[in-house]
């Protein structure tokens, strides 16, 4: 059954890459929320969500992105999204996330975007 969700954390300089894997729904979104909160608590505000292995997202997962983005940007950082599978990208687009978030094709593009100093969408 399609239930599992896991998250791996990598760093590259002061960039934190959160690699999401599996199914992000109302059951698993609290795990993602906790991970982002931990980064904020440690003043890590340059965050890149690598969604290459994220096969499902519902509004509960999208809500985590929405609820943190203002605080992260006010702290001088950003939460960018990259490497979306087409099925998941469609959900982001349905709600207009591309107007609020920087969504990049690959992890490398995401890292470059941070290196170039782009902060918001």
């Amino acid at each position: 059954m399609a239930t599992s969700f896991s998250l791996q954390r990598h760093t590259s300089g002061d960039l934190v890459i959160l690699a999401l894997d599996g199914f992000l729904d109302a059951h698993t979104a609290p795990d993602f929320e906790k991970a982002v909160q931990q980064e904020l608590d440690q003043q890590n505000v340059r965050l890149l969500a690598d969604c290459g292995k994220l096969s499902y997202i519902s509004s509960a997962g999208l809500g985590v992105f929405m609820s943190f983005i203002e605080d992260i940007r006010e702290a001088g950082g950003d939460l960018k999204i990259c490497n979306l599978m087409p099925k998941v990208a469609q959900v982001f687009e349905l709600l207009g996330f591309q107007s609020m978030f920087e969504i990049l094709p690959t992890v490398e593009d995401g890292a470059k975007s941070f290196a170039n100093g782009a902060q918001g969408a």
Partner: protein
Amino acid sequence: MPSMERTFSLKVPSSTENLAMIRDFVNGIGTRAGMTLADVAKLELAVDEACANVIEHAYGPETTKEVSVRATLDEDKIEILVVDTGKGFDPSTISPLSLEELVGQRKSGGLGMRLMKSLMDEVHYEMIPSEKNELRMIKHLKK
């Protein structure tokens, strides 16, 4: 001419861990209806949203209540009926705020209903006080 209508039902306890079971159930219905993979994915998401709302908002912390999903399939459409006996809501109270305004206010509520309306052809909600709440969603099948 005999009716081609077929009805399938699933009842699960009101815990978010059962959302995956609900998605699997809906996936089977959509596949049986001959929907494309993309349309099956949309159906799964819409029903997930409906049931997550029931579990998180209608029932709150209570995890032993019943979430009922009934799918009726005929030649032209799939109709999904999600029924609960929890706290109902008035759909007109759902925030009409734009995504930008929601983000500005650090809110994320109301996304589920927006998704349901985007993904399905019809969404109807009926609250029958002291009895039940019914969310009925219809997806017309492509010929």
